[in-house]
């Protein structure tokens, strides 16, 4: 019984996180200025990382944790580089 509740909760959480990724994608497409698009990209990768973690709980495999850690690290680097580019006009000076 409790396992059925957990299974449904995981499915509902995955649907919610996918909707969150869709909202961030819409903001990337319609965002009036460049900083809105960068902010939405940040929200997009956070939602994708959480989706990977729920996949890991669903399958009982630890491999998805490594994927989530990789998304977190590369997302930070990407957002920091975009912010630097918006500030200065170049990434590496």
């Amino acid at each position: 019984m409790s396992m059925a509740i957990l299974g449904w909760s995981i499915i509902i959480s995955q649907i919610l996180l996918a909707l969150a990724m869709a909202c961030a994608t819409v903001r990337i497409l319609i965002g009036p200025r460049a900083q809105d698009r960068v902010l939405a990209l940040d929200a997009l990768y956070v939602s994708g990382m959480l989706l990977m973690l729920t996949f890991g709980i669903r399958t009982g495999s630890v491999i998805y944790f490594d994927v989530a850690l990789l998304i977190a690290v590369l997302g930070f680097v990407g957002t920091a580089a975009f912010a630097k580019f918006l500030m200065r006009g170049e990434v590496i000076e």
Partner: protein
Amino acid sequence: MTVAADIPAWVALTTAALLLVGAGLTITGTLGLLRLDNFYKRVHAPTLGSTLGAGLVLIASMIWFTTLQTRLVIHEVLIAVFMTVTTPVTLMLLVRAAFSRDQKAKEAHDILDAQGKVQDAPENRHGRASEPS
């Protein structure tokens, strides 16, 4: 689900509740990102997902894998610490960049205004939505 049925009920229920609340907070933050009308308001919304939402999902993952593997699995703390450190840094950088871009746009607008080359409505002046990206 590939797991056996000998998981205690409270573990499954706690994991389910934490997952649902975490995912709900994340989509609340992203809906705020979609619906708020100003960049400086929109910055606040997705941090709901990247702090509390991520934290709750990571705690759910820790509880679940600790029960599943019958040993202490806390490597999710890595992601939690990393998100806690990096989110303020990136958002500070981004808001500083946006602020300096707004200042530059305002200065250019003022110069054009002084030369009488601006013909938009007064309520539209210095507006952030009407300027090109």
